[in-house]
């Protein structure tokens, strides 16, 4: 019986009706443990007729969860779904089916507060795309557990604002409902309410224990178990050590029981059947039974489970490792946890891999020195990808010490190369360079090896980062030749990728784009997602630096999807920061702000280049809008960037120069600018020389463009404002177009003003208005603030757009998807429009629109 849940069930049923007509949704069902989330979802599913396809999945409370467990559950009902592929491909396959099915699909994922990282990626992927499918994805979770830094919280935060996302909260039972449940018993409803707080599970459990009201809910659960026979009780205990559920065959084996004993446990209502498995009716009951097990009994059950699972054909490594860890036996942990870690790492479930590796590394004696060193190195590499370079350094150094003692030269050289990578992320370039040189020396004594090829590539990478073309190309070539000698696909790939990257930033950018595209396609063929992510990151950030925006944005967006799927948090943040910088340069300032804020909210490395790149873009938007907070932010980023390569700092420095120039006190910017200019001249980067040089020129420190400055900047510095404006128009930088036009005669300045007013670039607009006035030009266009109000009824441009769509008869959902904004934002615009027009309905709004000349056809009311 489901009391007080009719409204929630009705809501779920409505979502299914919507889904059948192609408006899918994600429904987040929240509530505390035992509130009745599962009962609600099961009641919804049980009441369905045959038309929808129902996929049921759940996350497990394992010490370290099994990657993608709910998707594996789904796959049993999705013939032909190949789980061995890349998770992204698996997700795309499921989405494709949900989009193109005739029947609506109900997908249930229970208990996402226990979800592993890969499952959270699945939810993020589906949640973003489900709106135009025939699916309803229902996720249950304990909202009192998804708090603080819980990994699911970030995902829920990203999905909540979408118009296809719905939230349901399963509240506690009211006293009336509790009284109704207790009607035929001697239990006092008030007492029952006090003991259970209206928690649905507690209420039913207490009532089922019969007779006296127990002191605790745990007591109520144990009372029911104690009424069972000896062997049935052993079955129940066996199921309690298995997270989620236990196969009936295993339950019989672990308890040495007969099917009758299982039936007894089932008919007493302690366990429920779930296909071929047994589970508790609720996780709280399982925990109560497990907690009450004497330690020796618990150990015995875990060991027995290990034995059973090891002989299982499927060999579920995460589950085996879970029992080894719970049994606390070092020999078993070092046997099973590393393999489970490797499996998780291969699937891109890095958080899980880290937990397994750490579990094994607690027992170095049992592992022996060589395995210990290798595990430290693997752990270090996972931690670096998780954007934790400091923790990574600690592990890699342990590995280095181990390999040194064991005199494993090639492994040592490889680990030194990894150390350099972690130190680079920590901005300790000198130390990293020393580690790299040691690695090279060690390797040269060993002849031609894969590790030598890889290290030469890393050296090339280092020169590319310093924006020095000649040595970067030289080492790329050395690495490429080693790859050829060895026939190594890996070395061939990294060489190709680095050659493309070097070209895009300090060589022939077109050639760079071509080589990097080839590298990404090759990585796709190799089915190596780490390489795909690396290639896309280089194409995106390098393409952004070379102002090849279209190529760059496409690469960055795909790069984010791939990096999310393999937990490369560092790459996700860095790609997003480049989306912010590009949006800034393209004059899409609202987007730039959104990306920058997203990086700020999600990145852990407050001194890293992702943070600096994103915050520099935000600071520059403030400068160009004339908003406060620009100087502090840009000065902070300038200071942070001094220990980084010049390309990570020149944006903040140029932003400060621009701000001080607009404020007519250029001298405040000179110190940092000259320092950065000297650094820029020490590179082969035309865009560094161009932009930093431009501000040196603008502030009167140089008269001619520096050699090798990027063309649009060089043209303007040479006095060719027209050529410069045309070049910027071609690239797609409207603010720079206006900057160039502003150097021209009054007609060009007026054109610049038009661009700047549309961008909302007040300070430069004011400056140009003053110049025009002093040149005696009358009839200046009104300032944008005055013009906004020239709009009918004082509506903003956005509101006019929304009103036009209302007048065309569109609903809020459609408007939201047309304007790429959330439904909630549309609702706010609509209510603002109603207020300004003094109307209360859509029909009235459409009439008012016709009256004031907004919208054009067919909405004029009769009369």
């Amino acid at each position, binding site marked *: 019986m489901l009391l007080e849940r009719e409204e929630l069930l009705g809501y779920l049923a409505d979502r299914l009706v919507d889904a059948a007509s192609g408006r899918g949704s994600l429904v987040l069902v929240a509530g505390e443990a035992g509130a009745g989330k599962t009962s609600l979802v099961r009641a919804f599913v049980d009441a369905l007729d045959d038309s929808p396809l129902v996929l049921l999945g759940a996350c497990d409370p394992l010490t370290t969860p099994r990657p993608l467990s709910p998707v594996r559950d789904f796959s049993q009902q999705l013939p032909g779904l190949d789980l061995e592929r890349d998770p992204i491909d698996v997700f795309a396959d499921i989405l494709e089916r949900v989009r193109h099915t005739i029947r609506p699909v109900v997908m249930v994922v229970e208990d996402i507060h226990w979800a592993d990282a890969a499952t959270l990626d699945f939810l993020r992927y589906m949640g973003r795309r489900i709106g135009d499918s025939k699916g309803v994805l229902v996720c249950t979770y304990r909202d009192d557990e998804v708090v603080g830094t819980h990994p699911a919280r970030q995902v829920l935060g990203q999905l909540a604002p979408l118009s296809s996302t719905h939230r349901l909260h399963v509240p506690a039972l009211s006293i009336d409902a509790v009284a109704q449940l207790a009607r035929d018993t001697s239990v006092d409803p008030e007492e029952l309410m006090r003991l259970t707080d209206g928690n649905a599970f507690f209420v039913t459990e207490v009532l089922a224990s019969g007779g006296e009201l127990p002191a605790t809910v745990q007591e109520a659960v144990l009372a029911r178990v104690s009424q069972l026979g000896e062997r049935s009780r052993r079955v129940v205990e066996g199921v309690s050590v298995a997270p989620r559920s236990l196969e009936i065959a295993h339950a019989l084996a672990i308890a040495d029981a007969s099917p009758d004993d299982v039936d007894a446990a089932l008919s007493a209502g302690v366990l429920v059947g779930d296909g071929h498995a047994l589970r508790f009716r609720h996780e709280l009951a399982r925990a109560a039974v497990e907690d009450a097990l004497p330690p020796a009994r618990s150990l015995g059950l875990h060991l027995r489970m290990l034995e059973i699972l090891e002989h299982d054909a499927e060999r579920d490594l995460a589950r085996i490792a879970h029992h080894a860890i719970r049994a606390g036996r070092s020999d078993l942990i070092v046997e099973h946890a590393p393999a489970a870690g490797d499996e998780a790492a291969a699937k891109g479930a890095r958080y899980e891999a880290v937990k397994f590796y750490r579990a094994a590394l607690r027992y170095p004696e049992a592992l022996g020195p060589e395995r210990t060193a290798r595990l430290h190195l693997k752990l270090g590499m996972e931690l670096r990808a998780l954007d934790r370079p400091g923790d990574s350094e600690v592990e890699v150094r342990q590995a280095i010490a181990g390999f040194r003692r064991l005199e494993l030269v090639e492994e040592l050289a490889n680990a030194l190369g990894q150390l350099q990578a972690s130190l680079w992320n920590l901005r300790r370039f000198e130390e990293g360079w020393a580690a790299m040189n040691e690695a090279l020396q060690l390797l040269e004594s060993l002849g031609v090896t894969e590790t030598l090829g890889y290290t030469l590539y890393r050296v090339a990478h280092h020169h590319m980062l310093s924006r020095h073309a000649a040595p970067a190309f030289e080492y790329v070539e050395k690495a490429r030749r080693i790859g050829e000698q060895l026939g190594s696909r890996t070395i061939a790939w990294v060489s190709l990728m680095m050659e493309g990257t070097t070209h895009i930033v300090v060589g022939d950018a077109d050639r760079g784009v071509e080589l990097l595209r080839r590298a990404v396609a090759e990585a796709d063929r190799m089915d190596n997602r780490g390489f795909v992510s690396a290639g896309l990151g280089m194409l995106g950030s390098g393409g952004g630096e070379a102002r090849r925006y279209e190529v760059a944005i496409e690469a960055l967006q795909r790069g984010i999807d791939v990096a999310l799927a393999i937990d490369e948090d560092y790459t996700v943040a860095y790609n997003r920061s480049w989306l912010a910088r590009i949006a800034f340069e393209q004059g899409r300032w609202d987007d730039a702000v959104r990306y920058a804020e997203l990086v700020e909210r999600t990145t852990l490395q407050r001194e890293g280049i992702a943070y600096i790149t994103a915050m520099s873009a935000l600071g520059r*938007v403030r400068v160009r809008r*004339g908003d406060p*907070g620009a100087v502090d932010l840009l000065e902070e980023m300038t200071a942070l960037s001094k220990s980084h390569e010049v390309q990570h700092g020149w944006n903040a420095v140029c932003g400060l120069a621009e701000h001080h120039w607009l404020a007519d006190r250029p001298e405040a910017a000179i110190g940092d600018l000259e320092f950065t200019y000297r650094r820029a001249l020490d590179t082969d980067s035309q865009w560094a020389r161009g932009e930093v040089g431009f501000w040196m020129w603008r502030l009167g420190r140089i008269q001619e463009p520096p050699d090798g400055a990027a063309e649009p900047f060089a043209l303007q510095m040479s006095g060719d404002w027209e050529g410069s404006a045309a070049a910027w128009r071609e690239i797609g930088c409207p603010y720079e177009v206006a900057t160039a036009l502003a150097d021209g005669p009054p007609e060009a300045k007026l054109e610049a003003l038009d661009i700047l007013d549309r961008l909302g670039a*007040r300070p430069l607009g004011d400056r140009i208005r003053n110049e025009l006035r002093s040149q005696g030009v009358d009839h200046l266009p009104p300032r944008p*603030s005055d013009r906004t*109000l020239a709009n009918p009824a004082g509506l903003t441009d956005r*509101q006019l757009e929304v009103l036009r769509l209302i007048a065309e008869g569109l609903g809020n959902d459609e408007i939201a998807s047309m304007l790429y904004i959330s439904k909630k934002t549309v609702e706010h615009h609509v209510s603002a429009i109603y207020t300004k027009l003094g109307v209360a309905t859509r029909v009235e709004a459409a009439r008012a629109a016709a009256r004031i000349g907004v919208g054009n056809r067919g909405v004029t009311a009769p009369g």
Partner: protein
Amino acid sequence: MPRYMVERTFPGGLEIPTTTEGRKAMLGVVENNTVEQVFWVQTFVTDDHSKTFCVYDGPSPEAVRRAAELNGLPVDRISEISVLDPYFYVEK
């Protein structure tokens, strides 16, 4: 949380009647502001009602801009401000 002064221009003049309608409009602004976590402290209006100076607390100038967009209000300029109290300088 920083405090901002938001300058707005209403060429046609701003009219908010002291009626249910006016009250509704005010509450609408306050409710919209919560979406961006910005708080409207108070507003000074020029005699001809064509310019307003609104004091806002908020996490960033960008949040203040987004709230203005939700409310359909123009923004001329946002400045970060602090209080200068003249009587602080007076001897007691």
